[in-house]
């Protein structure tokens, strides 16, 4: 490794970064006019008043699907390096990958059984504890056309 003096710029820039952030917040607080207004607290944080009421509750299903997607995305991150050199890893690598994929698969079975992939108004077979009032289904219905009532 080279001389550690070459890392000096990091610290200079770290200090500069902190100073800049502190300075810009401080100056804007000192100099900026303060006229609190309801519109400024509204979405977009810039004073534009929303013209119509947006549907508040986005169907939770979309988030669920996105989360499940991320899990499989991550599975690929680990499968990819293995696939590049699987012939060198031999049986050891194969067994390890099968164990890994098996663990993800069991979790996937759990998700399916828990109704995470049921897309539609049918009630989930089993609900977590008892949750009175709002359910996913009622939220989906309220949002209406934007929601996932297909099928």
């Amino acid at each position, binding site marked *: 490794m080279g001389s550690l003096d*070459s890392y000096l*710029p990091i610290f*200079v820039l*770290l200090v500069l*970064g902190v100073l800049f952030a502190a300075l810009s917040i401080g100056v804007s607080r000192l100099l900026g006019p303060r006229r609190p207004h309801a519109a400024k607290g509204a979405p977009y944080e810039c004073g534009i008043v929303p013209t119509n009421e947006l549907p508040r509750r986005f169907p939770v299903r979309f*988030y*669920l699907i996105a*989360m499940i997607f991320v899990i499989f995305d991550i599975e690929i991150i*680990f499968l990819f390096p293995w696939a590049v050199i699987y012939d060198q890893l031999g049986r050891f690598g194969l067994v390890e990958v099968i164990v890994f994929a098996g663990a993800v698969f069991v979790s996937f079975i759990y998700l399916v059984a828990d109704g995470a992939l049921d897309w539609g108004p049918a009630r989930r077979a089993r609900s977590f504890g008892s949750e009175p009032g709002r359910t996913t289904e009622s939220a989906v219905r309220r949002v209406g056309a934007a929601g996932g009532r297909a099928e």
Partner: protein
Amino acid sequence: MTIDGSWYLALAAVLFTIGAVGVLVRRNVLVMFMCIELMLNAANLTFVTFSRELNDIGGQVAVFFVLVVAAAEVVVGLGIIVAIYRHRVGATADDPHELRG
């Protein structure tokens, strides 16, 4: 003009600082969340740069694990945020205020 490793390290340090200040200053949970991602990616950039400078594969392997952890955090964080959204209107860190003492 050649760009040596210290520039990348400096960039990573700045990114990390922006992320850290963002988490402490911003009040929207999703924005705080993005700032945390920024911090993790700054660490990744540092790992890759050092890996290159030291000519050692270890730093690049570390990036894989950091990526995976970041994704796991995204999933869990989104899950918690969605659970809160279903009971509340906004997603602001100051909105939950029942725990004070």
